[in-house]
């Protein structure tokens, strides 16, 4: 822990950036899961998934 850390934490807390983990309930699980799953692959590499092609998404959902 460096010395700067407590003040950063206090700042974040004062700024309200501790909104309950409820945001997870809001954002991440309500799909379409936009991105990121990060997980071990064969124990050596963390995979990462960026978004599907946005325009393709629109083609499939707009109509």
């Amino acid at each position, binding site marked *: 822990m460096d010395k700067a850390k407590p003040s*950063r934490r206090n700042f974040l807390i004062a700024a309200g950036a501790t909104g309950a983990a409820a945001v997870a309930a809001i954002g*991440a699980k*309500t799909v379409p899961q936009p*991105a990121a799953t990060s997980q071990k692959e064969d124990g050596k590499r963390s*995979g990462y998934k960026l978004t599907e092609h*946005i325009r393709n998404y629109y083609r499939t959902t707009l109509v």
Partner: protein
Amino acid sequence: MSATRLSEAPVPIGESALSEEDRARADLYALFARLFYAAPDLALLDSLARHEDLFGADYVPLGQAWRALARAARNVDPEALTLEYDSLFVGVGKSQVTPYCSHYLAPTGRERIVVALQDELRDLELGRIGDTHEPEDHIAALCEVMRHLVSLGSDDQAIGRQKQFFMRYICAAYIQLTDEILGTAATQFYKDVARVMRVFFDVESQSFEMV
């Protein structure tokens, strides 16, 4: 593409290692990634509307902006929002606002920025999978990278990585990006999204300066 098969299930954020504020930050980044990836569906709108009080009182800018967004989510039609999103960010060659941050980072040489970003993602062992073609500097992708970096831990090294990525690709872009969204006509919901994002990124910028 670098990655092969990934499970469809979202991987939970490492809850034990994360401080409360970092979990909230990761969640906010996830939400922005979602909202800038595509318009929200009804379930997400309902969820937003039910969580008006999530970020504190009105005298806190984040709390105030959040409350406005939650209220806006109450009586809005998902199909109209899809059109709003489309006209804002997607229209080929005629979108009102470009969601690609390199556009705001430099007047020219966007390709160089994207290449540098790709290199950086490779170093982080991140990359596109499947038949994704969107350039990595899409704000939804950048938020997703930040969500990932925040979820890695609350130690000094992790925060240093977050700071470096944020300062390089988001910090110099978000003010103009949100200004452009706020300056467009005929959008309401995404203006509230932009206001929350602006306030949150202001908080992020200031907090990173303390590191």
